[in-house]
């Protein structure tokens, strides 16, 4: 439960140490056509920085899993090139496999083995030797809260426990790059947070790079340094979640104001004059986008923030109060990543649907 109380800002601190200068994954004109003619990935150009948590978003059938599988050497690209940790997966498969971890979209733990055995076999396959092996396994079991069930057959686990075990299994080899295909499907909010924390911690301690796909906007927003939205095999947009949200429209605050002196001596207006243009202090990074005035309602101002912070609201209220205005009402609305997703994925999808070849499931069926 303690995890739920952890302030959201803990990740902001951990974000600080990503230095964007070293690409660990590169894709150039990467294309995959499944026979006979399904273009699952369409000339993708994308680079992932070392130590970064990168999220791939997109509707069902966008090509996320296909992209991940190509990076993992599981399927060969039709054309284009890939570099993973400085290596070409086409002729250095084993070397690539040694440094990557994988959590598939489907169930990948062995139900006929115990949780402990699943971790043991994974560790052995990656050549992790005792005593390191035992200590990693017991630590992971503890971290993922699976200790008490470790010696039980995995087919008796709940779906969420299996997913946690799968992630633990991918972590037991301490990969340089961790690929996760929808890692937190089926996890409850507490378990999700546990997993996110784990990932952030590993990034902190080992400088691990994470490449994940997700349909969970909250997850992408919380966890990812950068996200890419993919649709019909193409990247529609790449960027930091915050910036993308801003691009859709920053936080907008609407205030209703009344000059203090209005009630008393009408000639002595100390507040902002009605016709006076409002100049906000520059440290707020905000600008007035709309204002209106009526005798009955008072003055209404809409302010858009480029950069939102938790103290923005108090600051803006303090500012107007300082100008001699009485703040009667405040209302803030922030665009979420959903809005970003809908804008970019949704738009492209409409285009795609016009094309006769678009044989993929609709966005709506995913959103249910």
């Amino acid at each position: 439960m303690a995890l739920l109380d952890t302030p959201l800002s803990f990740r902001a601190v951990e974000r600080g140490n990503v230095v964007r200068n070293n690409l660990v994954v590169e894709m150039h004109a990467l294309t995959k056509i499944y026979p006979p003619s399904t273009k699952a990935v369409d000339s993708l150009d994308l680079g992932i920085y070392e130590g970064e948590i990168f999220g791939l978003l997109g509707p069902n059938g966008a090509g996320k899993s296909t992209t991940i599988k190509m990076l993992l050497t599981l399927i060969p690209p039709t054309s284009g090139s890939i570099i993973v940790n400085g290596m070409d997966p086409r002729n250095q498969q084993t070397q690539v496999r040694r440094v990557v971890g994988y959590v598939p979209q489907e169930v990948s733990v062995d139900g006929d083995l115990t949780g402990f055995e699943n971790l043991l076999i994974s560790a052995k396959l990656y050549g992790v030797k005792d005593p390191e092996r035992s200590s990693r396994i017991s630590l992971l079991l503890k971290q993922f809260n699976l200790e008490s069930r470790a010696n039980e057959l995995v087919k008796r686990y709940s779906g969420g426990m299996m997913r946690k075990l799968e992630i633990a299994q991918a972590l037991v080899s301490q990969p340089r790059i961790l690929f996760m295909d929808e890692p937190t499907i089926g996890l409850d909010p507490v378990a999700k947070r546990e997993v996110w924390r784990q990932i952030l911690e590993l990034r902190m301690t080992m400088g691990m790079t994470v490449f994940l796909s997700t349909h969970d906007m909250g997850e992408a927003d919380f966890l990812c340094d950068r996200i890419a939205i993919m649709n019909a095999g193409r990247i529609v947009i790449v960027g930091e979640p915050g910036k993308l949200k801003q691009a859709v429209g920053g936080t907008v605050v609407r205030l209703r104001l009344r000059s203090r002196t209005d009630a008393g001596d009408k000639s002595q207006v100390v507040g902002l004059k009605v016709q006076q243009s409002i100049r906000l202090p520059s440290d707020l990074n905000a600008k007035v986008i709309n204002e209106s005035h009526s005798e009955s309602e008072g003055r209404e101002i809409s302010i858009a923030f480029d950069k939102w912070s938790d103290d923005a609201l108090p600051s803006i209220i303090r500012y107007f109060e300082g100008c001699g205005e009485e703040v009667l009402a405040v209302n803030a609305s922030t665009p979420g990543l959903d809005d970003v997703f809908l804008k970019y994925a949704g738009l492209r999808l409409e285009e795609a649907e016009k094309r006769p070849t678009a044989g993929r499931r609709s966005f709506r069926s995913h959103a249910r």
Partner: protein
Amino acid sequence: MRANSIIENAAFLGAAVTIAEAEARKILHASSELWIRAIQPALWLLVFGEALSKVRGIVPQNFTYLQFISAGILAQSVLFIAIFYGVTLVWERDLGLLSRLLASPAPRISIVLGKSLAASIRGIFQATIIFGISLILGININLDPLNVAGVYCVVVLLSMCFSTMSMAIASLAKTRERMMGLSQVITFPLFFASNAIYPSAIMPEWLRLVSTVNPLTYGVNALRAIMLTGRYAMIPTDIAVLALYLTLFIALATISISRIIR
């Protein structure tokens, strides 16, 4: 360079042993399944063997029919168990198990070898069961320690042979159901076009021809020589043919296993 290749070899064997260990642990967790699997050969011997032992003239004079088919039934039960490994592979593909395994640094050939070694564990258990039944039914077969060890060796070879064969065809079948169908389609011809339950001598000419390219025939020959007749002269040939098939199937299965998830 040489040191490097030794390390590579160790890693490739190590991975195979790890895969086999996983399979062995699964067998241990579901050991009741081993006993259930033992019912089939027991029934063949008890019902089929007993019934046909009344019919004269099927097998050479100096052996009883039960003696004759004990080696055949052993080979058959090894075949039936090993052929299931391809179905398991398709099943593991449908889950994400195989993808995760293939994304690990374990060489493809190690995965194939590991799984076929696991088939051998099951095969050895079957052999032990057949020895037990023979003792109970008083079927007179050679139980000298060296002969028993020889039987185990042939059983390992046969198990590996048929499990890799089954994994080799797994990439041809896109669904589990089709793979099951495919397994049956090849299992029964293999079984009937062999000398498992009747000697080659009574086969029609065309069937005898088929049986000479059937790996099961060579397995049965070797087993029968060790368990019963003591005519060891042809054993090296039998082993060589099986080893040849095994090499071929390992190669095909290694290719198949990487294609199956594409």
